Structure formats: C-alpha cells, structure tokens
C-alpha cells in the first residue's frame, strides 16, 4: 500500500516493500537485508532468494558510489514527455550493491561523466510523488 506514490508515475499499487516510500519521506534510501543469511538487496525485496527466508530488515544505502553509466533521454515514453530531457544512470557502491535512478535535474549533460563520484538522495516532486535521485559529490 502507498506504493503508487513512488516515482514520477507508479505502475505498482501494492507491495510488501511499500515501507520504502515511508523511508523516502523520512529522507532515507533503504534496501533490504536478510536477517537469516545476510544477503543484501537493492532494489528492496520482501523475500530472500538465497535462503527462502521472508524475515527481512532494512538498511540505509551507502552515501558514496561511482557512476557506472548513464543516458540522457531526449524522447520519453507516454506520460513522461513533460520531463524531457532527463538523465538516468547506474551507481556502483561496490560489494555487489548498485542502484538505478534518474540523475538530479540540476546536473548539466556536460557535467555527467562515467566514473564520477556520486551520491543518492530522496526527492519529492511538485505533485507529491516521492523518488530518489543521483547527485554529484
């Protein structure tokens, strides 16, 4: 419940990881960690594929990573046209932990480079939707 508030436009209403959106409103970007075997997941999962446990805890994503790759969308899918152009990328935090998100809109295209140091933070849009974005550090 409440997951329709996630992202520019959500396609999922109900998920057992809905608490993720509450964490965003508290200023935190969190993944899940399996209490039984310690496997860490981002994006969050309600169930552990490594040991089949559903006993999961939340952990805050690291503050510093490296931009592994990015793109700038000059053409948007249906329903996202107003945001164009916008950039999206993958952050590698090491230890098999990565994250996919939009890059902050105050980053100019010429300032975005593969390998640059980045961080991640929650963001709230004008319509109240909650998301997270990649920022330069």
């Amino acid at each position, binding site marked *: 419940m409440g997951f329709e508030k996630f*992202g520019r*436009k959500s396609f999922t209403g109900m998920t057992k990881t809905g608490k993720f959106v509450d964490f965003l409103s508290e200023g935190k970007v969190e993944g899940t960690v399996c209490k039984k075997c310690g496997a860490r997941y981002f994006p969050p999962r309600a169930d552990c594929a490594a040991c089949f446990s559903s006993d999961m805890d939340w952990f805050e994503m690291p503050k510093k990573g490296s931009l592994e*790759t990015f*793109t700038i969308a000059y*053409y*948007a899918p*249906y329903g996202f046209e107003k945001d164009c152009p916008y950039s*999206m990328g993958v952050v590698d935090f090491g230890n098999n932990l990565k994250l*996919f998100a939009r890059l902050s809109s105050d980053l100019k295209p010429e300032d975005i480079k593969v390998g640059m140091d980045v961080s991640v933070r929650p963001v709230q849009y004008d319509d109240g939707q909650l*998301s997270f974005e990649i920022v330069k550090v």
Partner: protein
Amino acid sequence: MPKDVAVIGVGQSYFVRGYEGSIRELAFEAFREAMQDAGITTKDVDASVFCSAPEYDKQRSPAGVLAEYLGLIPQPTFYIETVCSSSSTGVKVAYSMIKSGLHDVVVVLGFQKMSEITSAESQERMGRGADIQWEAPFGTMMPAYYALYAQAYMAKNGLTHEDLMNVRLKSATYGQINERAVYRKGVKPEDFDPKNPDARMAGLVAWPLRVGDACANADGSSCVILANAEKAKIFSKKPVWILGIGAASEAVNMASRPDFSKGLSVGYKAAEQAYKMAGVTPKDIKVAEVHDCFTIAEIMAYEGLGFAPMGEGKQLIREKATYKEGPIPVNVDGGLLSKGHPIGATGGSQIRTIVLQLRGEAGPMQVPGEPDIGLVHNVGGVGLYGNVTIFGR
C-alpha cells in the same frame, strides 16, 4: 554433431509499416511460404507454437485463433513469449517437443502487428517489459536501456559514434537489396551529421544513441517448420539441421546487472552452450544473424559470440569484416536496423535468413563460399532473455 531435428521450411512476410490486414492474415503470409517451401500439407503438421509480445494485440490467447485460420486444428497449439526473442524460444521449445518423441513435425509461427499503437505508446509498453515496480517509474524505455550499455562500452573501449554509424551503413547496404525489408533506403555519413539540417539519422534519442542507431518498428510474420530426422529425409531435399541451442536469462533490474562495459551476459552464456552442444567454435561460423536492435547491440554481439576479443568488436566494423565478402558476414539481410523488428517475428526471420544462406538460396544477399554452418543470436528485452542457435547442412 547432432542431426536429430531439421528445419524443413521457412517463410516470412514483407516487413512493413501499417500492415493492411489482421494478425491472422499477417500470420498466413509467412505460414503459406513455409508450407510451400517444405512441400507439405496441414495434415503433416502435428503441433503448432505461436510467438509474439502480447501487448500489441487486442486478441487474447492468439494461438487458438491463428491455428484455426492456418488450418492447424485439432492439433495441439499454444503460445510462447520472451519479448523480442519469442520465436527463437518457440524454436527451442519445438526442438524439445520433437527430440522428446512427442511430435514429428511442428510449426513455429512468430508475428507482430506493432502499428496498431503509436510509437510513444509502444515505447511505454516496451519500457514496461523492464521492471515496472522499480524502473518504469523513472520513465525508462528501450533506447535508454541500450544507451546505458553504449555509454559504458564507449567510455571503456574507445568505441566512437562513427563506429556505430558504420554498423548502420552496413545494415542499410543490405536493406536496399532485401525486398522484404521495411527500410529500403540507403544511408550515408551525412545523414548522421548534426550540422546537416536534413540529417535523418542525427537526432538524439537517448544519449549516446541517435535515431540512426535504432531499429524500426514494423509489422511482420515469420514461420519455421521443424521435423525429426525421419520426416526431414522424406519431405526435404535440403534439410538444415539444428546443431546447437543455448539460452539464458539475466536480472531485469539494471541495479542487479554485471559490468555494463562487457555487454549483455545472456549473449555469452547462450553462445557458450550452443557452441558446446554443436561441437563447433566461433571460427566455424560462416554467416551469422545477430540481434542489432541498436547499433551498439551488434558490436556487443561480436564479442559475446567470440567473433572478436573483448573490447575489440569495433575492429570488425572498421575492417568491414562483417560485410558479405568478409571473413564473418553478419546481418547481410539488413538486420533489425533495416529489415525491421516486428518483435515476435524477428527470431524466425533471422532463422529463415540463415537457412536460405546454408541452402545457397539467399539471392542477392548470398554470401560466397557455400557456407555450411550459420548462427542466430536473438535477444529479448534488454538482455533479459538470450537465445543462440547454430544451424548446419
């Protein structure tokens, strides 16, 4: 080298924008050609498999409807989907049905009528072929996903926009001589020049990919008829055998993907299985069809299939090694870029091209030297599903 299951008939519709007919009529075009190619009647067929990406059609559960229209009832029929690689997956399933002894002759029919929805709607649906819970809310789409791979690959391996353009120039060379292709026009370097006001290919879609780096939507159908060895010898003068099949899957979310600069993992994994099963190496492949939904995808496929060392795929296009006269001809039918990419029909169309090449019947696209072994590389989604199939005479 196993010779248990053969392709005895292949067919393909013209790939077009805005097909003037329904999906059953579109399917019939490829089916009729494949049946006439095999020289069999519907009584000789004992099962059918239909393949597409379901978002584009209003018809639910199309297999039954199409089987009836093609005259393939009351034989068993069902539907298979792995997005852009649906019909390669269909061929893998049909191979298993025959190899198990359950069936002797199976029709695999791939189809897609993409033109019923707008390009933007189509992008939205294709975006939802990725992770709708965690990625589509950012406004993802296919070109953006492949652009992530292109950006990482270009940064690491010194691949340039000119190299990507040269992939497009190659596909256009063959699109011009393939009468079934949707894009029959030639492409010149000035079409990619951003300073040229008339440049058709230069517009940015998802940096670093431009209009000319992307394949065209199309409507189309393809048909592959498979038979066991006994039936193949009865029906076919030139059976083309399935020597090796490989298939793999990968995490849907980009956050769970390995090193982006190394290309799509499903390509390597499927290729490794197919080579092992066939008992051949990349050097034995005389002609190949690879999944060039974007120019970058062809370069990554060169490496995934072992035609070039890691990071060196660019050399093949710089040296024109993958042209028809080169040591490893790739996509000499125009590929997805020029022939077009009617999602569910694409794998079967690639297979048809290789079968015609191995039979020496590819017309103006025929590669010299009587090729005896060919390969098809067909990817679904952004490397979500990968299929590699090796064929031999």
